[in-house]
């Protein structure tokens, strides 16, 4: 448990924590975690991952079998953050306009007709793209363009999406029939890829107790969209020491099989390593994690903690890895464990 410093007083200057974001950031983040934790049982790492992703200003891809509470998690976060929330169930017949919106012909009172843009579900602060891999690539592209550019174009008009804008997509790894796996370039747009684990026996017991009763718990709203934006800007100010930054760079470089000092497993099983966007995700995620841990700096441990969600969807495995059942998680673990801090 970290010890937060009291009021910073230097000479005649006093820096009050109450008016500054370092303390509010931590208080808000912890409040969100607490509120979400009341609803989502037994998934603290996933909750922390999603929260980290949101505070870092990125989008998250949640992967897990159906029924693990992915949708509930996203909805609960939306409620706790007092954000506009929309959910899109991706199906093969879902069209881009179904998510971005479309212009419709509207009759006015004077009898004239005008085209009016009707925003789609993407026009929300928090968008849940459920089973994103079931939609066609065309629709996926529309979503991913919105994720990257944070605006949509309908006809000749470009519509800016609201701030903050988060996409939390889910996909089912086992039902591959009739799905359109996201291409690597589009996967790269997600800051984190979080895997939702199966709950433990105790967690299942609690889930059964809490969700089969009369009343369902609801999270309290602990922050607004504006506050979240402030926290996002603040998270980017967290200083990173050069040795830590170099450590992150080394990890990312060593995921590439062409790097001379990359582990043998990477050279053998990986076709491509992480892109520089992976490094950005690594550092941003580490900054948020550092703050969530009560620090105002990034530690080596922060880098290690966010290495898996930041990089696991950015490493492209070769055929040999598929044949031998080697996952990207194992390769990242090898890279992290063999990369020296100094």
């Amino acid at each position, binding site marked *: 448990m970290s010890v937060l*410093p009291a009021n910073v007083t230097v000479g005649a200057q006093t820096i009050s924590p109450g008016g500054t974001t370092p303390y509010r950031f931590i208080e808000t983040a912890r409040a969100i975690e607490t509120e979400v934790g009341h609803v989502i049982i037994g998934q603290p790492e996933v909750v922390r991952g999603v929260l980290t992703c949101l505070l870092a200003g990125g989008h998250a891809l949640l992967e897990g079998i159906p029924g693990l509470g992915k949708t509930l998690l996203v909805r609960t976060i939306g409620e706790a953050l007092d954000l506009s929330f929309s959910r899109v169930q991706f199906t093969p017949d879902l069209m881009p306009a179904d998510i971005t919106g479309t212009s419709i012909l509207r009759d006015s009172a004077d009898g004239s007709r005008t085209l009016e843009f009707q925003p789609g579900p993407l026009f929300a602060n928090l968008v849940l793209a459920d089973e994103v891999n079931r939609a066609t690539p065309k629709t996926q592209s529309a979503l991913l363009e919105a994720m990257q550019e944070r605006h949509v174009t309908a006809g000749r008009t470009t519509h800016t999406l609201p701030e903050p804008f988060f996409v939390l997509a889910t996909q089912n790894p086992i039902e591959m029939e009739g799905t359109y796996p996201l291409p690597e370039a589009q996967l790269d747009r997600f800051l984190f890829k979080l895997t939702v684990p199966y709950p433990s026996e105790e967690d299942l017991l609690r889930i059964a107790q809490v969700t089969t009763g009369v009343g369902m718990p609801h999270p309290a709203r602990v922050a607004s969209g504006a506050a979240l934006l402030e926290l996002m800007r603040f998270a980017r100010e967290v*200083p990173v*020491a050069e040795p*830590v930054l170099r450590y992150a760079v080394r990890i990312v470089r060593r995921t590439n099989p062409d790097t001379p000092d990359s582990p043998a497993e990477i050279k053998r099983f990986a076709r491509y390593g992480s892109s520089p966007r992976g490094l950005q995700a690594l550092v941003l995620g580490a900054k948020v994690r550092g703050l969530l841990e009560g*620090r*105002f*700096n990034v530690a080596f441990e*922060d880098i290690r903690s966010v290495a898996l969600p930041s990089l696991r969807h950015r490493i492209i495995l070769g055929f040999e890895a598929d044949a031998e059942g080697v996952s990207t998680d194992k390769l990242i673990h090898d890279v992290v464990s063999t990369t020296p801090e100094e």
Partner: protein
Amino acid sequence: MTMLSPTATYHAELRQELGSVGRALSIQRGLVWAARGLAAGTVVVLGLVIAAWIRGTVDSLPIVLLAAAPMAAGMLTGLGSLFIHHSTSELARRIDRVARLSERSTTALELGATGADFPLALAQMRDAVEHLKRVDLLEAFPLRVPKNELMTAFFVVVIAAIVGLSPNPWLLRARASNPAITIAREQAQRVQRLADSIQPQGSAEIEALRQLVNKGAKAIDAKSNEPDAALSALQDLEDQVRQMSAGDDQLASALAAIASALAADPATQNLANAINTGDMRQISQAAKDLAQASAGLSGQDQQRVAKVLRDAAGQAGRSSPSVSGELSQAADGLDNAAASAMAQAAAAGDQSQADQSGQAQQSGASAQTGNAASDALNQLSDNAAAAGERQRTASQLESSRNALERALGRTQSRSGSTSPGRSASNGQGNQGSNGQNGDPSQSSTGAQGQGGDGTDANSGAGSPGGDQSTGGDNGQGGGYSTGGDNQTKADASGSQLDTITTPQQVPSNSPFTPDQSSANPYLGDAGNANAQASQESVQPSFSSKPTSGNDSSSIPLGLRDLVKDYFSSLDKKSP
């Protein structure tokens, strides 16, 4: 008053805290390195002990030095490590890692260096400083006893002790199979005792000799496990002693030359007798006695002694200018003293009212000239004493070398060449070849030992060289001989102690100067080998030589009885 910015203030505080970290780290590291130095020192000591154990010289290892060396090494490395400089960034990373500060210090140090002053930076630096202040440096860098290093040192010391105390089986086996090793060690100890027995008595020459022998003894001891090398070291030492004795031959020749001249006066008779013994110690003592006695002589006696010394100086001039000079100085001093005394007496008779101050001046001048004579004679005494020590040393070294050579099964071929006049032939003897009665140049006392049947007739007027006998141990097959045989000389520059018997040095009343040719009066009846003169008539002090030789330390203790028996047998043979 200058107000520092918050960033600078935090940066200064941070550096201050890191300074404390650096000191704690240095102390911890110093302790570790001291233990490592100690361990390294013990390893070195173990190496020395093993080397000595292999060579069988463990006893000669300096225990105090062996104990002090590891400690000194530990202290040096420990103190040296305190001067290792730690950069602040290194200290920050170190304390971050050790105290689990999650890179707070490292980040704060960078922020302070860049002068970052945004709120989060200030909060971070404040956070880092607060955390650093809470760190217990003794807990972060505990002064743990470096057990591994100390245990290593302990075990190494134990091993060294075991090795040092246990006998070397290979060495024991080697010694058992090669007795020469034991003999080499014994001779090394003997040479060491010889070095210890040398008393400088204020003489620089004798002190130099003592140091040389002492150093040589250690060299021989160090090589005692290799008898050949030990013999070589012994021979080297012998050579060096011989080099120091280069001038002794001239001294001996000069003394021999002046013996007859000195015998002419009762006051110098003792010195002459001492010279006739050939014992430099006796000569030294006699010269010293003469120096003391000269001051108490009357004026006439002083003049007489001065004349004798001047004659002796003339005799010694050819052999040794230095001896001649010393005698001349002594004669001059005595002359001056006699002149002063006589002038004083005359003045006392003629002018009874002479003032006391004038007498005092004359008395002082007399004493001064008397001192000059004493000084010259004392110088002669010192030279003789140094020569005597060198003779004794050379004799002992030769004896040791002979013993070692016998142990190695070698013939003592160096005897004749290394010590002319004291040949130590190995069982060869002179076999009567030197029996040229009446030839003073062939003074020899034969040999004993295997095949050594020499009972050479002693002839000539020279004093026998038997008083400087050296040689091997009786009964070990090594013969010995005393007395010189110039015919056996291989080294022309060798000692001429026995040249006391050479014709040109024989005291003679011949009117001819040495540079003039003349018939040798001693060769008249020498060729028929029928000389019937008794030993005593040739050398009156002959029978006393064995006794006096035995009394001196020049004859090894174990051989004295043998020498005495030999000369006793000569007494029985003599008519």
